[in-house]
Each structure stands twice: as structure tokens, then as C-alpha cells.
């Protein structure tokens, strides 16, 4: 394979980062104060919650499944734990570290329930997670008054704390980047990660090749639950409270972020690196429109348009890739003949 072809293919495979940089430079030229340290930190800070959900959704997508319950888990897990630790059993569960642990545990358990129903009982992932999402949302509205505040500073640390030593950097940003880095390693360099992607690419072939595919599916949902719980703690920390509306409607945007990042809807294809790009582009896009003074409601519609562009780009990318490879093949044949 020729060198220039390799470069072209690499660029095509990382097209989200190309789009991100182009968009960034365009905005930096056109919008004053866009490229300032404060605004960049602002963009990243506002992206952290969505990033967690994009990773959760993307991770399940890699396995060839969906999870519609992630934004409900985002509200339910911290909501119920805070309720329990402040109202129901303030003595036994008052410890904030315990509360963090319980939030993660609850998220993981919900994910396990989803995964068990899909992998072992053969339920359709769409239906299963949709029904659970409605149940959890309903329970949140039933249990939690408008909001519970304030929270223990330990609990709200990852969502709220800022490091004054490094330009007032919010703790959420390094936390998010670290988690993404860990998932990059997990997917690329571990046996689990490769088997997990293989299951998404072709579950039947993976089963025949000796991979425990139901374990892979269940683990995928557990991890999505855990990440949604982290997203919930980030949200709770930022607003220093838990409320019954938090995270509402974010699930579908999380799909968008994952798709923008090059994740395949049919599984087996995608990377943590790409998903991060997708999440940041979503955040940067709404930030730019914000700075331009576009109304909040219209920003939502514009994000929809961005998703459309993403899908279009993806189709374009796939056909371009095929054409490049075909040309290379034809050239090779010509050389062989002549």
C-alpha cells in the first residue's frame, strides 16, 4: 500500500478530529473570545457530563446494542442515594465516600439488570431499556422533590471542585479525560476489549470462536450503568443538588455524539478517542451558537442538523474509502499486466 494512500485512509478514519479542528479554527477566526483559555475550559467543562453519556452509549453500541435508560440512570442513581443518605438513613449512610460507592453500585446493578434481560432472557435491547427508562424516570419524579441541596463537598467534588493552581481548571475535565484514556486502553490493548469488539462485529462468529458472548453483552450494559452514574455525580456536583429533571432528554444526544465520533450503529466499529471527539464537537457547536447569540431552543434544532451532517459525512467517508482502495487495486492490476 502506498504511503499517500495510507495517509488518506488515516485521515478518513479520524475524520471527526479533522472536523473538530476545522470548526475550532473557523470559530476562533470568526468569534471574538472563542479561543480564550476561559472559553475553552468552559466548553470542556460543559462537555464532561455529555462525554460520559456518549461513552456509555458508544460502549453499548460497540457491542451491537442500545441503552435508552442512561439519562434515567443519571438522575436515579445519585437521586436515590442522596435521598437515602440525607432523609431515610442519615446515620447509617451519612458517609459521603459510602454514598459515592453506593451511587456507582446502583448504576452498575441497573446495567446488570438490563444486560441480563437482553443476553440471558433474549429481550430486545430497545424495548428493555426503554421500559426501564420510563420506570426509573417515574420513580425519580415520585421520590425526589424538586431538588435536594446542599450536597456533601466530598460527593460534589468531581462535579464542582476547581484547581486554582492550574488556571481554575474544574476537576471534572481531568476526570473525564482519564476515564476516556482508560477506555482507550481497555478497548485497544486488553483481551477483554478485543473480544468485546468482536462480539459487536459478529456475535455468532465470536461465539463459534469461543468467546463468551453473553458475558460481553452483560458487561457492556454494566459499564454503561457505571458511566451513567458517574455522569449523574458530575451533574449533581455541578448544581450542588439532585433534582428530578436532571439529564432529561440527553440519551438521544448521546447517540448523536457517538455517531459523530465514528461509532457504527451495527456494532464492532468505533473508538473511545473518536467518541471524545464527537462529544466535544457537540459541546463546541452549542457554545459557538451561544456566543453568537442564537436562542437556546434554536440551538437544539441546530444540533439535530449537525447529526444529519454527521451521518452524511459517514456515508461519504465509507464510499470514498472503498473508491480509494479500488483505484489502488486497478493500478496494481495495470502494473501486473503492462
Amino acid at each position, binding site marked *: 500500500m502506498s504511503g499517500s494512500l495510507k495517509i488518506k485512509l488515516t485521515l478518513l478514519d479520524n475524520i471527526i478530529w479533522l472536523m473538530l479542528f476545522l470548526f475550532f479554527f473557523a470559530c476562533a477566526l470568526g468569534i471574538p473570545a472563542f479561543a480564550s483559555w476561559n472559553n475553552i475550559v468552559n466548553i470542556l467543562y460543559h462537555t464532561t457530563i455529555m462525554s460520559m453519556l456518549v461513552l456509555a452509549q458508544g460502549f453499548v453500541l460497540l457491542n451491537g446494542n442500545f441503552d435508552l435508560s442512561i439519562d434515567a440512570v443519571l438522575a436515579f442513581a445519585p437521586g436515590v442515594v442522596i435521598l437515602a443518605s440525607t432523609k431515610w438513613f442519615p446515620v447509617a449512610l451519612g458517609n459521603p465516600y459510602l454514598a459515592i460507592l453506593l451511587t456507582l453500585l446502583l448504576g452498575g446493578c441497573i446495567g446488570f439488570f438490563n444486560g441480563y434481560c437482553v443476553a440471558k432472557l433474549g429481550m430486545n435491547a430497545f424495548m428493555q431499556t426503554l421500559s426501564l427508562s420510563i420506570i426509573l424516570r417515574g420513580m425519580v419524579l415520585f421520590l425526589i422533590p424538586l431538588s435536594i441541596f446542599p450536597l456533601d463537598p466530598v460527593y460534589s467534588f468531581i462535579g464542582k471542585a476547581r484547581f486554582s493552581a492550574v488556571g481554575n481548571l474544574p476537576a471534572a475535565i481531568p476526570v473525564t479525560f482519564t476515564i476516556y484514556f482508560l477506555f482507550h486502553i481497555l478497548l485497544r490493548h*486488553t*483481551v477483554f476489549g478485543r*473480544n468485546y*469488539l468482536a462480539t459487536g462485529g459478529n456475535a455468532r462468529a465470536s461465539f*463459534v470462536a*469461543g468467546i463468551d458472548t453473553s458475558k460481553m453483552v452483560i458487561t457492556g450494559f454494566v459499564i454503561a450503568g457505571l458511566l451513567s452514574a458517574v455522569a449523574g455525580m458530575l451533574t449533581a456536583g455541578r448544581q450542588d443538588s439532585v433534582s428530578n429533571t436532571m439529564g432529561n432528554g440527553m440519551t438521544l444526544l448521546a447517540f448523536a455524539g457517538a455517531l459523530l465520533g465514528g461509532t457504527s450503529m451495527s456494532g464492532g466499529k468505533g473508538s473511545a478517542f473518536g467518541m471524545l471527539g464527537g462529544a466535544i464537537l457537540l459541546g463546541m457547536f452549542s457554545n459557538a451558537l451561544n456566543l453568537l447569540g442564537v436562542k437556546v431552543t434554536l440551538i437544539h434544532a441546530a444540533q439535530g442538523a449537525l447529526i444529519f451532517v454527521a451521518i452524511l459525512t459517514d456515508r461519504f467517508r465509507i464510499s470514498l474509502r472503498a473508491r480509494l*482502495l479500488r483505484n*489502488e487495486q486497478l493500478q496494481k492490476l495495470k502494473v501486473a499486466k503492462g
Partner: protein
Amino acid sequence: MEEVCSKPVLLLEGISKVYPGTVALENIHFEALPGEVHGLIGKNGAGKSTLVGILSGLVEPTSGTIMVNGRSFSSFSRSRAKREGISIVPQEPEIVLDLSVAENLFLGELENCSGFVSWSKIRADAQRILDRFGLDIGADLQARDLSLSERQILLILKACVVEDANVVVLDEASASLSRNDAAILKRIVGELRESGKAVLYISHHIDELLDICDRLTVLRDGRIVTTRTKNMLDHHSLAELIVGETLSSSGPERKEAGYIGEELLRLENLTRWGNFCNISFSLKKGEILGIAGLRGSGRTELLKAISGIEPADAGKIFFKDKRVSFSTPSEAIRMGVAYLPEDRETEGLIQTFSIRENLLLNSISRFSRNGFVLRREAGRRAEEIFAGVQIQAFSMEQSAEELSGGNKQKVVIGRIMANAPEVYLLDEPTRGVDIGAKRSILSIIHGPLRAASGVLLTSPGLDDLMDICDRILVLYKGNMVREYQQKDFDEKSLFMDVQGFGYQDQRGGDECRAV
């Protein structure tokens, strides 16, 4: 009338199709005249399915033109093919299981009575067609309740009678037909010929082609060898044209039987109700044991049962004299029993993965420490196998879906080799691959695979089995008919056993499948 007849309805001019790594069709010139049944034959991988794909608009030719009804096209789509009056009957009957027989028959052709469907008319028309050809099927029956053969004949009727096409392509349509339905097919084809339609008849059976067709075109390695009228051909000359050289040397050079060692695998009365029953044999190290049988003889199910994918109901499996019963493929793989699936697309490959990743799929945990992949060692092993099975690709990073059939199969074989298993269960490793790939796959089996292990092998072609096996077992409808030693190999006798001649009367039918 005479003038119309001499003008072809379908004309292919200089059609080529290039896939990465292979040339599937090269400069094909082909014509079909009205009122003729034109047979198309060639070995697996000769290019038949690509040609059908191009005619049906599913495969885009790399170059060349297609002329239909005097108009020429450089590319062809599914809807264009239909509009130009080309109907295709595919190999696997694809019907809508939840619709009635009548609606399946008229699917896409539902007559429009100001926007509404006239059910009574459709039902009556369908029943009339079914009755005309003597089919004992009710038009109201759900398609799900039909047998495989009835489903296929339904599709044939749809293409030949309902769609009123000028050109009908029957792609191995007779393969899943019962004896009775095959006679109906012959009648349908005869009617098409009389009404001046062109029929393209693709089959693996020489007898059938010589019986039904007017002219025959032989394909070999993506090229047309010859087109001749039937009376210029007989069994022997046709067979020679298909194979391309003297019949005896189509495989790798037959070597002396290698060292045969201790017993690895032993089956005692293994039974899976409805698929096969009372199968017993033993496999030794360094031995290649072939299993011959038609589709539905239980050969695939037998291999799947041993490998734990669809476990058996009764009987015993011994691996190195130890009783085993694998209930999942991962248990079998851990013990050293590797299975190569029949369908590489759905069961063999992760299409989105690169060649390297596919090669390492089974063995990746061997090249890891604490759950982390040791990239360098894994990469070295992958490279070793990549070179060993001679995959033709730009690099190992190319994704598997871009490869040709033969190279895909080599990737799957390489994948199961990577684990160095002791028993290989190979289900049709040469199915649908080109002749070059087939040869190298057979020599891999005959060389490195058998050197270190025992091999159980099935194949669509008897000649493959005869070329490399030490023994051949013949299955017919789930029963073991006969075991051949290498010195007794005889294609004709094997062929008779595979077709079940003499067996049915002797045993009084198929007790194993009756459950």
C-alpha cells in the same frame, strides 16, 4: 419469426469484475436467445455467482456493457433488471414467511384496483397457477408451513409465470427440490421455451443440464471456456471442459500417507435427533478423514455437535481416551478441538475487523499478560500465519470485508490454526473459493494441519475429498452408509452412495429424520 429468434434478448459484452485480490470475471461475452434454455456450468468459484449478481443488478461490473432488448447499459440496478424483464430465482429460497402463498406469489405485482388489493382475484389466480402445475398447495396456506422444496418451487413460479419476464435466471434452483418438484420445474422451463422466453439455467449436475438445456456455456476461472449446443457434448467431454485438465490431477500432488499416530477422537453412537444417528468412528493423529454427503445429510450438524455448538442428544465422544461433552465452543477450543464454520461470512469472520485481528481472535489470550495484549508477540504470530496461509492482501491491517472469498477463508483457517489445536473440524473449507485458493487451502490441510493434528473434513466436491483424505465416510440422511479406505476410492461408487442409491430400499427409509 425466424428473424426475431436469431436476435439475442440478452447480450453481455466484455464484462469484467475485479475484486481486491482476484479477478472474478474477465472479458465475458455471452448471449441468450429467445426460446432457448441456456445452461451455465462451472466449478465452485468459476464465476457463476458473480455473473448472476451482475445480471440481477446486485453486483456492479468493473467494465463492459449489458445489452437487454437492444438497449445497452454499463451498470445495472436491481430495479432496472426488473424493468427490463429479467427475473432471478436465487439459490436460497427467500420468501416472506408470514404472508400467504398467494401473496408471496404476487408480491410486488399485486394488482391495483383503484388503490385496493383484490384478494379474491389474487387467491383465485394463485390457485389456478398452482393447480395448473399439479401442486398440492392451498393458496391460503402460510408460507411458513411449506417445505424447503415447496418454497423454492413457489419462487420459480413467481419468476417464470407471474412476473412474465423475458429472461429467467434459475441459479441452482433445482438444488433443494424434491424429485416430484424437479419434474414440475422441467415442465415450467419447457413452457417458457415454447413461449419464446430465454432461460439461463445454472446447475452443478451434468445430467440435469444435458437433459434440459439447448446450449451450454462452461465457465472456468472467470473466463468462458466454450459455448456449444447440446448435441455437440456428452458427459465426458463436458466434465473435461469444466475441470480444464485431465480429471485425475485437480488437487495438490498426492503424497504418501503421513505418519499416523495415536487416537485423538472417538465417537460412539453419536446421535442428534432429526439430524444424524448412531455415528461411530475414530480419528488418529496425522489422519485426514473426509465426510461425504449432500446438504441435509447431517455432515454439518455432526461437526457442530462435536464442537459443542449444537450438542448431541445421545452417544459418547472421547478425546484422547477421555470422555468429553462440550456444551459451548469455548470448552472445545480450550481442549484443542477447533471448528471451521461452513458459512464464513456469518460464523467465521468479524467483517469490521482487520485481518490481523481476525487471525488472533481465537488465540489472543495466549498472547497476553494480566489481561493486556502483548502486541509484539501477538503481531509476530499473526505475521507468521499470514505468510503461512498465503493471504493475498495489501497488508494485515486491511479489513476482512474487503477480501475475496478465498482469502476470507484463508483468514478463518489461519485463525483456528493460531491456537495449534489437535483436532480440526473443517466444514466445507473450499466452498465458494476460486480454484487457486482452493488448491492452496487443500495443500495447507494436507501439509501443516495434518502434520500436527487429526483433521475431519467435509467438502462440496467429492474430488477434493478423494484428493487429500485417508478415509472417507459417507452420510445419507443422517445415517452412516459406508466407509472407504483410500485404496478403494472410486468416484462413481462414492457418488452413488452419497445420492443414497440402494440404501433407502435396504433400510426402509429415513428413520433418523422421522423424529
